[in-house]
């Protein structure tokens, strides 16, 4: 009998920052070169660990923003005021710096190209990051599964990946809708949160049998997930990922 691949426990490894892209006033994308990276699925994340001179560790989990193409990994980090890790990543880290990472991790909030059915993505703020990885993987795989992104942001200048999103939305299979909660661009009269009305008009309906991915701050995710279930979506097809200022994710 042939030996199967040995599954190992995950350990920390050191990557190098190869590029930094400013996305918004508070978010930036860090491109990492990690020599031993085994590849990842869209929606997976990695943990970043910072070590103080006295040995104190702080680690946080960040969603990977890129589809795996065999080279580098994009992380997009939104600065959390008074955060322990994100201010360093957003303000201090520069090209050429080492960064300790562990991953990829997570097997639930993932999209695989062979998965059947439409994909409904619903993101709040930087919750768009893993959804972007899914759209990029969708494009990379030339998937014809219909995909829709409903992206809730405070104002037009808060939109992460605005140019890439417009390019992806040029595909017949990808649909993009922004929902502005504080300030809308000219020509967009509606300001407000995602509600049942928007979901009924801009999202796939239960009979379309989509797999729905909802990512954002905890209150956003719970509100949207409740609205989806109330509208008749099967809870088993609604996958959620929460993040917040308390530190675990992002």
């Amino acid at each position: 009998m042939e030996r199967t691949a040995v599954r190992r426990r995950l350990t920390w490894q050191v990557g190098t920052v190869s590029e930094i892209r400013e996305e918004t006033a508070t978010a930036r994308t860090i491109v990492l070169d990690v020599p031993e990276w085994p590849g990842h699925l869209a929606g997976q994340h990695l943990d970043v660990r910072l070590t103080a001179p006295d040995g104190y560790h702080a680690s946080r989990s960040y969603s990977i923003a890129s589809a795996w193409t065999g080279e580098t990994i994009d992380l997009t980090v939104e600065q959390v005021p008074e955060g322990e890790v994100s201010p360093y990543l957003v303000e201090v880290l520069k090209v050429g710096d080492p960064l300790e990472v562990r991953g990829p991790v997570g097997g639930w909030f993932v999209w695989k190209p062979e998965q059947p059915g439409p994909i409904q993505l619903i993101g709040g703020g930087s919750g768009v990051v893993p959804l972007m990885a899914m759209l990029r993987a969708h494009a990379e795989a030339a998937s014809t599964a219909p995909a829709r992104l409903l992206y809730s942001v405070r104002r037009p200048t808060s939109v992460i990946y605005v140019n890439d999103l417009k390019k992806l939305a040029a595909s017949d299979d990808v649909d993009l809708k922004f929902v502005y909660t504080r300030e809308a661009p000219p020509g967009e009269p509606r300001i407000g949160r995602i509600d049942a009305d928007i979901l009924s008009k801009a999202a796939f309906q239960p009979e379309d049998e989509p797999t729905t991915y909802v990512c954002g701050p905890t209150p956003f995710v719970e509100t949207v997930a409740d609205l989806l279930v109330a509208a008749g979506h099967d809870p088993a097809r609604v996958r959620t990922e929460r993040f917040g200022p308390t530190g675990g994710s992002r």
Partner: protein
Amino acid sequence: MTADVPTYLDGNAAAGALREIFAVDLTAAIGECVGCGRVGVFAEARLYVDAPGLVARCQSCDHVLLRVVTTPTDTYLDLRGLTYLRLPTSP
């Protein structure tokens, strides 16, 4: 203070800590809560990360499902709140 803002995340955020202990991903595993018998994906559990270590609680009854605490020398894993975990068998 903003007491009305939930302080929990979800089981997805425990993926890294658990993969340091286990060779497979546990966040997509199905588990049963000892407290109320709810059966669900571990990723959907409430995860508190501001306790010492990580504490996962049942989203229905708030019972503690799992705790992971890492000290400089050891990692403590408490799984008493899960009757079982069901994982897909590797092909």
